[in-house]
């Protein structure tokens, strides 16, 4: 088993095929989307492949050390130009192929018109500790 991080972006990902912002969907479309996401997580819990998942707030700031005795510098909230992660899910699966398969399913969540969003999700493997026993 290996862990993968699935990342969903607010900004910074290539445009989705069905690229209509959520605030322009109908209530029924939003409900269908939320149900799909909940069902997806529940199914992975049943299969023992779910580790954790969280949604993130849309604002973020870059922060940097600014020298001895000074407070850290930030670029302030609501910077408009950078990538922003909307949420993440960690899965623990048998293979890279399985991780890609699941990310594909997640990307098929329904959006405007009840059609799949086809959004781009990022799949990143976790670095793991070296094995205790090497052969």
């Amino acid at each position, binding site marked *: 088993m290996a862990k993968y991080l699935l990342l969903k972006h607010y900004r910074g990902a290539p445009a989705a095929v069905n690229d209509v912002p959520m*605030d322009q969907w*109908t*209530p029924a479309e*939003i409900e269908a989307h*939320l149900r799909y996401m*909940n069902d997806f997580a529940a199914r992975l819990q049943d299969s023992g492949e779910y580790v954790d998942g969280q949604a993130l*707030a*849309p604002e973020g700031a870059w922060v940097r050390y600014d020298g001895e005795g000074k407070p850290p510098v930030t670029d302030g909230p609501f910077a408009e130009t950078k990538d922003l992660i909307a949420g993440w899910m960690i899965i623990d699966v048998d293979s890279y192929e399985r991780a890609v398969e699941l990310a594909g399913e997640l990307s098929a969540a329904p959006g405007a018109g009840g059609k799949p969003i086809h959004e781009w999700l990022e799949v990143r493997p976790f670095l793991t500790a070296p094995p205790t026993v090497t052969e």
Partner: protein
Amino acid sequence: MGADAVDEGRLRDLIPGVLAALVHRGADFATAEDAVQEALIRAVETWPNRRPEDPKGWLVTTAWRCFLDLARSDTARRRRELLVSEEPPPGPAATVDETLQLYFLCAHPSLTPASAVALTLRAVGGLTTRQIAQAYLVPEATMAQRISRAKRTVSEVRLDRPGDLRTVLRVLYLVFNEGYSGDVDLAAEAIRLARQLATTTDDPEVAGLLALFLLHHARRPARTRADGSLVPLAEQDRGLWRRDLIAEGIAILQAALARDRLGEYQAQAAIAALHADAQTAEETDWVQIVEWYDELVRLTDSPVVRLNRAVAVGEADGPHAGLAALAGLDPKLPRYTASSAYLHERAGDIATAARLYVEAAAQAQNLAERNHLTLRAAALRQRLSSGGV
């Protein structure tokens, strides 16, 4: 364990008294706390076979022995143990309530609120580190560190120093609020602790806080749908509200109010009681609720209270009065945009309301709230595009 299984809730009720007794005998807080946990494990193991006549006495004796064992393994502690054995028995000072002092210690101002909450749950509430970690969704090792750092911080604090009851109430309030959204039932734990605190002090604000907890807790079964989404107060199925808790909360509140020492928790509980009392949302006595918010503004001068007051004014005197009350407040306040959206919706300005709901959803601090606001925005947009307003 069979029919004689130890009632864990009642066992946990004994913890603060036992812990306070050890600290009064001269045990340092951190070791005493470990010793009490050890004694509890032994109680759970042995009581089903032979329950002591005096459970608290049994726990104090066992915990004290555990403490001596722990102390003996450490030369520095051995010295302290000798000192203690030479000390005269505690004098009249010991008549002050030890349990209350333990609450004060765990809510000590030198601790951050997060540490105070963790230490209270562990030392007064008797929850295990694992249970507390689960409630806060952090790894057990993280919570163990947080608790042991908190113990070190208060290790030099003498238990006989008078504490600030307001800080204690604040800590319980934080515990309760956490439980409102979390998986492990910290709300029930906060209620249990508030009940216990109410037996050790007669401050009407303690009663006010307990009443507030009970009245909020009573509405919990109606507050979320099976999928975790939020149900606004006006749309809740009032048949699901716990009438027993409402009756108890109101009785406690009335007794507290009769003592004529109003505080913010009593005023908050009075508002919750007025909501709980209405058979339907339409019957809510908003005029009285606004009056209680006026009291709360006087007591706390909190901008958040002023914001909630503006929403209540909107219900009592109409949305335009509500928007006027909102006008003087800082738009950066939490829930300002959501409140403004709601009042604009009620005033019939659907386009502005839809725009503000989208904005509020982007600022929402939890997922259930964000989904709720997004759905409202979508519903209003649908009405706009279909031409009906």
